[in-house]
């Protein structure tokens, strides 16, 4: 039983723990978060692409969507921050790889934005320089045209022609350079510029100043252009896309990991469930088996109890029988002793009288007969007759002196008394058993008590008990006298035994009490305490030493009273005596 309890408790504990884990797990695995994140990452990618596209546009076309670029940059920052610090905060916290990837992307994004900013700035500069260059070029053009008008006469003037050529060449080289930004072309451009600078001495001052400025501007443009290119390249080179991919991959890994874990957990849960089920099935099986066992056991026990009950009943009947036999034996022994005493002296007396008759009286008889014979003789001898009469007289005198006559008389009287005693005892035995009478009859309770007293007489004598009777004027009642005799004998015997040490008086009172007949036996014996009174009618309860009483006497008495629809009770004080009250209904049919 303890084993089962422990097993069940363990299972419950495991179940609770798994439940707790399951709640926690399901909180972390949220498919919507994954979807949202994926969307966000896709959005970031789109933004990144847009930025790159815009950068290209800005770099290679004349577009000037700087505001859009800024907006895009803001968007991408916001989106990423959102993703990093809101949507995936916990995941990033938990996964170092994801954290590194996010950090990487963040750093790159910042670097890219910085490059982009630089790029935009330089681009703006370049545009301004471009305008300036164009303006300067137009000025030069104007100057050259004016110059050309002024020098129409002087067509031979080669310096202007060269200048124009140089300028053109420079311009061509400039565009060529812009096209590729290759060092060769830069060199070519620088060469053109150097040539232009070397030929500038030949032109007029006004022109020279403009051309010089143009050349300077051009040079600045070259540098700026290079810077723009550099930042552009930097910005484009900032491999945000790859990093974003890496981040996405990492997140996907993390997510898969989570899913795997949850799968594992689910497996554990399934195993737990199976184990639980298996154990419950085993328990159910065991319970069923126990139940079946129990049923069998109950059946077995019931049979055993039934057998034991029957045995008990039998042995109780035997005990009651043996109690009856024991009290019968005791009664017979008592009666035998009672009869033996008168029988003893009657027998002795008869023997003695016989002997007396055989000796003294025979002698007297013989003497008388002889004298009588002699007297009747016709020829009687007076002398002989006188002698014979003298003998008769002598014998008679001897008998007289010896007191044999009186003795015989006395012995006969005693014998008569003894025989009376014996027949009285036999009569009371007959009355007591009532075997020759009908079971239920109208009987005088006093007769019952008297015959019980007679039967108990040896108990009464032996314990020096005086009987005091206070009989009321009571009617006959319908009862079973043989049973009532048994009841009274029990009560009287107990009373006598209670007084065995010091003797005493047993007073018996009878009186009519409403519908009942009260019979009260009061002794002056040991008495009983409360406890003993409580138990006195219980079967097998006895205060006598082991082997002296079966403890059934009073229980049988109780039964007899109940059979008569009566009541029996006791009042007692230790060392003062006991009073037994028996109430029998005057009319048993009405009560």
């Amino acid at each position: 039983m303890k084993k089962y309890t422990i097993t069940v408790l363990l299972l419950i504990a495991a179940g609770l723990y798994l439940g707790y884990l399951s709640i926690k797990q399901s909180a972390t695995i949220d498919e919507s978060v994954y979807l949202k994140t994926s969307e966000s990452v896709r959005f970031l990618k789109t933004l990144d692409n847009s930025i790159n596209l815009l950068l290209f546009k800005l770099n290679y076309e004349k577009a000037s969507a700087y505001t859009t670029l800024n907006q895009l940059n803001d968007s991408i920052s916001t989106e990423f921050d959102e993703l990093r610090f809101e949507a995936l905060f916990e995941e990033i916290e938990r996964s170092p790889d994801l954290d590194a990837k996010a950090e990487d992307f963040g750093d790159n994004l910042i670097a890219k934005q910085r490059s982009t900013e630089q790029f935009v700035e330089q681009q703006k500069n370049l545009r301004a320089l471009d305008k300036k260059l164009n303006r300067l070029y137009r000025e030069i053009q104007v100057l050259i045209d004016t110059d050309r008008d002024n020098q129409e006469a002087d067509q031979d003037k080669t310096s202007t022609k060269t200048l124009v050529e140089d300028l053109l060449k420079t311009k061509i080289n400039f565009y060529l350079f812009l096209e590729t930004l290759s060092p060769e072309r830069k060199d070519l451009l620088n060469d053109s510029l150097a040539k232009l600078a070397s030929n500038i001495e030949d032109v007029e001052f006004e022109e020279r100043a403009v051309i010089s400025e143009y050349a300077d501007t051009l040079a600045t443009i070259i540098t700026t252009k290079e810077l723009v290119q550099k930042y552009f390249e930097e910005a484009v080179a900032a491999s945000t896309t790859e990093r974003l991919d890496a981040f996405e991959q990492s997140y996907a890994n993390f997510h898969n990991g989570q899913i795997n874990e949850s799968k594992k957990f689910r497996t554990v849960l399934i195993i737990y469930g199976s184990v639980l089920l298996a154990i419950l099935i085993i328990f159910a099986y065991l319970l069923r088996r126990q139940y079946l066992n129990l049923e069998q056991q109950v059946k077995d026990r019931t049979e055993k109890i039934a057998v034991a009950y029957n045995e008990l009943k039998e042995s109780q009947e035997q005990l009651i029988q043996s109690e009856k036999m024991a009290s019968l034996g005791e009664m017979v022994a008592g009666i035998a002793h009672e009869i033996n005493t008168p029988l003893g002296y009657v027998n002795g007396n008869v023997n003695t009288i016989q002997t007396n008759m055989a000796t003294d009286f025979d002698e007297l008889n013989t003497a008388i007969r002889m004298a009588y014979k002699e007297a009747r003789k016709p020829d009687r001898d007076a002398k002989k007759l006188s002698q014979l009469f003298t003998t008769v007289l002598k014998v008679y005198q001897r008998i007289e002196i010896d007191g044999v006559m009186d003795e015989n008389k006395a012995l006969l009287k005693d014998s008569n008394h003894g025989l009376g005693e014996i027949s009285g005892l036999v009569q009371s035995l007959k009355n007591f058993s009532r075997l020759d009478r009908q079971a239920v009859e109208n009987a005088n309770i006093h007769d019952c008590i008297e015959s019980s007293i007679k039967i108990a007489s040896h108990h009464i004598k032996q314990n020096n008990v005086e009987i005091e009777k206070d009989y009321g004027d009571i009617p006959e009642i319908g009862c079973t006298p043989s049973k009532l005799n048994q009841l009274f004998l029990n009560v009287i015997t107990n009373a006598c035994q209670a007084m065995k040490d010091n003797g005493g008086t047993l007073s018996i009172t009878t009186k009519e009490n409403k519908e009942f007949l009260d019979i009260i036996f009061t002794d002056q014996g040991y008495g009983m305490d409360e406890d003993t009174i409580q138990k006195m009618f219980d079967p097998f309860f006895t205060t006598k030493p082991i082997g002296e009483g079966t403890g059934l006497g009073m229980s049988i008495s109780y039964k007899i009273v109940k059979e008569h629809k009566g009541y029996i009770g006791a009042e007692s004080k230790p060392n003062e005596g006991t009073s037994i009250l028996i109430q029998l209904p005057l009319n048993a049919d009405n009560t």
Partner: protein
Amino acid sequence: MSDKAQKYNILFVDDEQRILTSLRSIFRREYNVFTASGGKEALEVLAKNDINVIVSDQRMPNMLGNELLAQVHKLYPQTMRLLLTGFMDKQAIIQTINEGEIYRFINKPWNNESIQAVIKEAAEASKITISPTSEQAITHTPQESAAVSNNATAVPPKAEKKAISEHATLIMGSSQSLRNQIRQVCKEEAIPVYSTQSIRQAVNAIIARPTIGLLVIELLSNTDEVIHTISLLKQKRPELITVVLADETDAEVAVNLINSGQVFRYLSKPLELLQLQKIIRAGFERHAAIKSNINSQIRFKVDKPTNKITAGLKELFASFGLIKKQT
């Protein structure tokens, strides 16, 4: 009417006056009859008169017959004691044997002739003095009792131990623990012990060894045989003291053991060693007393067994010449 001085004094004790009257009328011619209606009165009579035989009823108020006889045994060992009983009170009967060392049990109602015969024997036996056993003389120290015993049996004091060791004990019985107990006691008293398993062996041993003075018999199922054996042996060897042990004592057996066997003790097992020692000592004292004064055996005369002796037993005794062979 013979001289009153030559008449024996007998005392009848009963609470029923008519019994006393009846008994008196039987014995008044040959004896001086005293009567008492109770134990106390009887002791008063005993104190004033030299009573030869006391016959007491068992069931009397205040003092039971066995109690009275036990006192008489102690105070007036010379007086022969008989118990008149109408009711088999086992405990009282056993006590009368062991404490009262009674001569006979008389059943109520009695037969005039047999009671006359028994009382005649008892009265005659009462004239023979017998020394009390040391157990009986409890007021004496062992030395004093030895002195008393010596005076009575006229054995010199120093030879007393030797006198006892001249005797031997015979055991008949199967219980090992009992045999060991007896051996232990007898070893201390320097008494040889013989052990037998059957009546034949026991009778054989007693015939062969005149030193055997005490016979301890364990009563098993062969009650009648044992009683007959004791009776026959007692007739042949009146000085043989018999102690009978049984798992459970029985009133009728007890009466027969006394009337036909004059057993010294009838006891239920188990016994304590000290008790056994006392009994064996007292038994040998009694044995020595009877042996020293062969006339005293009539104090322990036995009746012939009431029921028939079995053929086997008769043959056995005939073969030892204890009884005449039937032709």
